[in-house]
């Protein structure tokens, strides 16, 4: 087990190093110098040179990479070119919206998908099954930002149950959660549809296993067999998908935050892009990628704990 964790850890570190190089290199090829962008068209050459020096842009690329990467290790994400504030502070502030939103959405999607998937699998072929599968087909076809707009139209503009956007802050947690509810539903919809389908097919697979028949034969009720045997074994593919979905949630949040004017990480990236605040773009994207790699690492380890057979492979 320890050897397995170490080997996974090794590839985790390797992916992070490569990812950081790729992100840094991609952003570095951007045409347009941040210093001359900030100073405008009429800036003198020596003013630009001075600002470049101040921002640390005058040293070679590889030195800047090393400086950035070693900073990341210590939690120092650098300083924003535009706002001159530490990026770690900006990120921490935005994370208070983006992270709860992702967790909220993931919780919702799991709460919807599990019962739906279990219901469809246990009543395979029934009207319930057909209905659930039809809804999931629709759920994956609907763009979540469009669904978000429709919810704003119905629940914010017509019924006035929710506000159409913005975030009141965490001073009143109830209001904050209320403000995140529509965005979280919009994010959860496609994820719940995918998860329900995976849950259904995984459960159908385990329900036809011999050990389920054995369990029924030794006198367990359908319900007991389902909870004790079938469901547990069906969880493995479901866990994988939940892990993968995390990355989609992060990306989906970028667009959804724009629909609801939520000042989260996604909006931070967009602002930074339009202001040529490259170091903010690099750091936020790196953070998102780090989160995805970490979640997948955690899922891999969780498997190995649940199922010893998986420890040997890769």
């Amino acid at each position, binding site marked *: 087990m320890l050897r397995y964790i170490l080997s996974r850890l090794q590839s985790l570190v390797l992916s992070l190093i490569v990812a950081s190089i790729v992100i840094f290199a991609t952003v570095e090829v*951007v045409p347009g110098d941040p210093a001359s962008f900030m100073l405008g068209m009429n800036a003198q050459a020596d003013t630009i040179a001075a600002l470049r020096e101040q921002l640390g842009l005058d040293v070679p690329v590889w030195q800047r990479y090393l400086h950035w990467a070693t900073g990341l290790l210590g939690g120092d994400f650098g300083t924003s070119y535009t706002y001159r504030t530490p990026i770690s502070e900006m990120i921490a502030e935005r994370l208070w919206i983006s992270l709860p939103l992702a967790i909220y959405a993931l919780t919702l999607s799991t709460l919807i998908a599990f019962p739906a998937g279990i219901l469809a699998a246990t009543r395979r072929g029934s009207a319930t099954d057909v209905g659930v599968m039809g809804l999931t*087909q629709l759920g994956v076809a609907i*763009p979540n930002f*469009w669904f978000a*707009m429709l919810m704003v139209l119905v629940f914010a503009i017509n019924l006035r149950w929710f506000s159409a956007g913005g975030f009141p802050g965490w001073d009143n947690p109830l209001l904050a959660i209320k403000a995140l509810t529509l965005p979280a539903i919009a994010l959860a919809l496609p994820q719940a549809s995918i998860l329900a389908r995976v849950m259904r097919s995984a459960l159908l697979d385990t329900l036809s296993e011999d050990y389920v028949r054995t369990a029924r034969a030794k006198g367990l009720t359908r319900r007991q067999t389902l909870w004790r045997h079938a469901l547990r074994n069906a969880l493995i593919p479901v866990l994988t998908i939940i892990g993968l979905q995390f990355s989609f949630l992060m990306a989906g949040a970028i667009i959804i935050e724009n629909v609801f004017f939520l000042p989260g990480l996604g909006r931070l990236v967009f602002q930074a892009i339009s202001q040529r605040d490259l170091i903010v773009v690099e750091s936020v994207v790196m953070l998102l990628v780090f989160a995805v790699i970490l979640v997948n690492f955690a899922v891999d380890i969780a498997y190995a704990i649940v199922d010893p057979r998986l420890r040997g492979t890769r």
Partner: protein
Amino acid sequence: MKALLFNRNFAIGLLLTAVFVAGALISFVWTPYDTSGVDIANKLKKPLSDGYLLGTDHFGRDILSMIMVGARTSIAVAFVAVGIGIVIGVPLGLAAAASKGSLMDEIIMRSNDLVFAFPSLVIAILITAIFGPSALNAIIAIGIFNVPVFARLTRGAALSLWQRDYILSARVAGKGPARISFEHILPNVTNLLIVQGTIQFSLGILAEAGLSYVGLGAQPPIPSWGRMLAESQTMISFAPHMALLPGLAIVFTVLGLNLMGDGLRDVFDPRIRREKR
């Protein structure tokens, strides 16, 4: 082919997809109204009024015409992005399978893992943000993410094919790995590629819509469904049809492609067909 048309999913999916492809093709020669001009006198018409089947937008442009021309953008972007995924991903997957366990296999699969670690939209946003928003950059951004999808699929399927006896006979006959890959492995993974291709196509349409919605896709004056939605957002309270219709176009196209994919999988995979799911 007959089995395909008798498959309900495939038939419905094909019909839906065909409607939008036809709309896109017809728009090259004819649209109900011109989409490039502004006609303020006829702005914000409701659907089914004054000869406008689906109404007009805030510039008085006919929404049906806009959706037809927008279909062109969506379909072209998604189609080329799938093409990139297949043209680069499939040979990589074949090469990885043919040299299983080698350094090349390791490098190909590792870089695939890496692309997967980047949420696809984050890659797309990064690329379009850096190289400037345009339909071409949207294609590249979506296409890059398709590469590992096809590479993995091809490698996985090819690995099991390499164990087959007919591959062994081909090797005994003196064929090299490259020739075997293209002559014997590739034809046997085509079905899988077609199914995955339809799925990636529908994901591509969703991704393009998302990118155009945040302003990183096709730029004006090229109509696109995502930007139509973005423009409608501020007017949603008094002109809901502007937000509803392009969204429905996306939903129906994606739904059509997904149903087609499901139908193709049912028919191509005899294992599933026998079980009747």
